[in-house]
């Protein structure tokens, strides 16, 4: 019924008229066409489809990111317990945190964890990319294998390492004591303050370096071969070629990956929560885990969010610099 009604085709005629503005303008300027032309001039030629297609994202960003974020900033300036209405306290939470020794330690740990992980991931990622650009057989197969830690669930990886690091029955101690004989006695990798941080960094590195490798690899592949040939003709050594051709060629990608990983690592909750919950005695306590524990252990939501937001200015800076890099490399 509806399909044979004249209305839709009438609509179409009008839409057609809109897409041929010349005829509309030469003839008597009907108010609708004039309005449509004005709207197109102000809102852009594709504004109808554009607004329609983007609306879901706008709604989503407002509801799931912008609003929660604003609410978080507000809550961080209140005293809020679970199930109780928030009480405004201004910057009290932030001031108190600044003088809190446990919080200060978590900040230092977060930086250690992030810096250590990112540096090692960069070195290993560079190694991986170089190996995968050198002449080896089944290159795409090996690329695929090396990328597996990146797709496997983080929880699974963390649990695997929890078991590998186990003091009495873990395979790491077994290898070091019984197979290689490097140590006389096993090490409590996650339970001793001296080794806990390195152990959790190890897991983050294991999971994250393939992303560095694959990204660097993509960057290296994009460098024109002629540059290497020219360098070879000029008598450049392998190291010189790496320093003067490869590195400048992948500089943008390196920056993007470094910054991206800095954000991810700084906010990594899963690995440390599963492996140590911040222990032993706070030796691996980092901000995301501390946030969770204050929120759901101590039930002090306002203070917890202040912990999460404390580093926001620094983080926002990284995010802005990074998004500029990402947009720039996209435009090319």
């Amino acid at each position, binding site marked *: 019924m509806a399909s044979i009604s004249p209305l839709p085709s009438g609509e179409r005629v009008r839409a057609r008229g809109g897409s041929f503005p010349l005829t509309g303008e030469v003839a008597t300027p009907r108010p609708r066409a004039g309005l449509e032309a004005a709207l197109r001039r*102000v809102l*852009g030629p594709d*504004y109808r*489809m*554009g607004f*329609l*297609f*983007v609306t*879901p*994202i*706008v709604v*989503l*960003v407002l509801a*799931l*990111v912008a*609003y*929660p*974020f604003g609410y*978080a900033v507000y*809550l961080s300036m209140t005293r809020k317990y679970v199930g109780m209405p928030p009480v405004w306290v201004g910057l009290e939470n932030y001031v108190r945190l600044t003088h809190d020794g446990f919080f200060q330690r978590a900040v230092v740990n977060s930086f250690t964890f992030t810096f250590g992980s990112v540096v090692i991931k960069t070195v290993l990622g560079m190694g991986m990319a170089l*190996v995968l650009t050198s002449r*080896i057989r089944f290159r795409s197969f090996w*690329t*695929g*294998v*090396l*990328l*597996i*830690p990146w*797709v496997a*669930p*983080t*929880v*699974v*990886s963390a*649990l*695997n390492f*929890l078991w*590998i690091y186990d003091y009495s*029955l873990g*395979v790491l101690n*077994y290898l070091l004591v019984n197979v290689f004989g490097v140590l006389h006695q096993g090490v409590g990798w996650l339970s001793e303050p001296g080794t806990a941080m390195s152990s959790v960094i190890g897991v983050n590195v*294991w999971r994250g370096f393939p992303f560095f490798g*694959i990204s660097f690899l*993509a*960057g290296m592949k*994009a460098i024109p071969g002629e540059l290497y040939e020219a360098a070879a003709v000029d008598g450049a050594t392998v190291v010189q070629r790496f320093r003067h051709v490869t590195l400048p060629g992948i500089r943008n990608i390196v920056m993007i990956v470094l910054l991206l990983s800095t954000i991810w690592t700084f*906010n990594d909750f*899963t690995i440390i929560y599963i492996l140590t919950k911040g222990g032993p005695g706070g030796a691996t306590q980092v901000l995301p885990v501390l946030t*969770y524990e204050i*929120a759901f252990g101590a039930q002090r939501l306002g203070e917890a969010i202040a912990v*999460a*937001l404390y580093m*926001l200015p620094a*983080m926002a800076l990284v995010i802005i610099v990074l*998004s500029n890099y*990402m*947009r720039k490399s*996209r435009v*090319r």
Partner: protein
Amino acid sequence: MGSPLDRRRSTARIERTQSALSYAILVTFVLFVVFPFYWMIVTSFKGETQMRSLVSMFWPSPFVLENYQQLLGRTEFVAWYGNSVVVSVSSTLLATAIGTLGAYALARLKFLGRAFMASTVLITYLVPPSILFIPLYAQIRNLGLADSLTGLIAAYPSFTVPFVTWLLMGYFESIPVELEESAMIDGATRFGAFRRVILPLAAPGLLASALYAFTQAWNEFLYALVFITNVKLRTLPVGLSTFITGDVYGWGYLMAGAVLTTLPVIAAYIYLQKYMVEGLTAGSVKG
């Protein structure tokens, strides 16, 4: 430097050393990457007595299925698996649909606020969940969705949609505009050109981004840990993490659960590796 022959011979020698070195480093990398998975699989087939005794560390002896039987029969693992499938599949469909439309508009259409939205999407993708999980939880609870899979399905687009949109924007931008224009000259509408010309060409990108969205949802831990308290409604990552008991017996079925949790993402990844690697490098970091 002697005769050309000498030089060629020494180049060959250098190349051989280089390739030997490459293989040595490659093997080290592969061992480092693969060993934890190997260890997970071996552990899942070891019996209780073997676990306690450090014999035949690197191979199950005897080879037993008791861990899997216990996992499937005496824990909530099967229910968790179902929950993970429901949550991941629905949020993937949602993210891919919303992301495809949005990415196309942001990559191709000209309208007011386009550049602003494109930046917003990127920045949203970079905002870490550790900042958002408490207010999101409060919001989900106010909507009466706490402790439900719907709550997770509603929250996951906060990270899947910006990612998918950003990835697909790269894809759409890489498709020549002329293809669309010629379709429109032939009488297709803008939407028709999008549906019949652009979407089929972007199919590998759609597949890759859907898979990434699925993987992200499947692996998500923090929101699932915070939003869900009912044991039966847990997703796999949270469920698995509750198996940590500090007891030796636990490791067998924990590793069995880890194997079964990893299986779908790895299977999908192996099957579609080409698209996923390309998608990752083409979409997220290009240039």
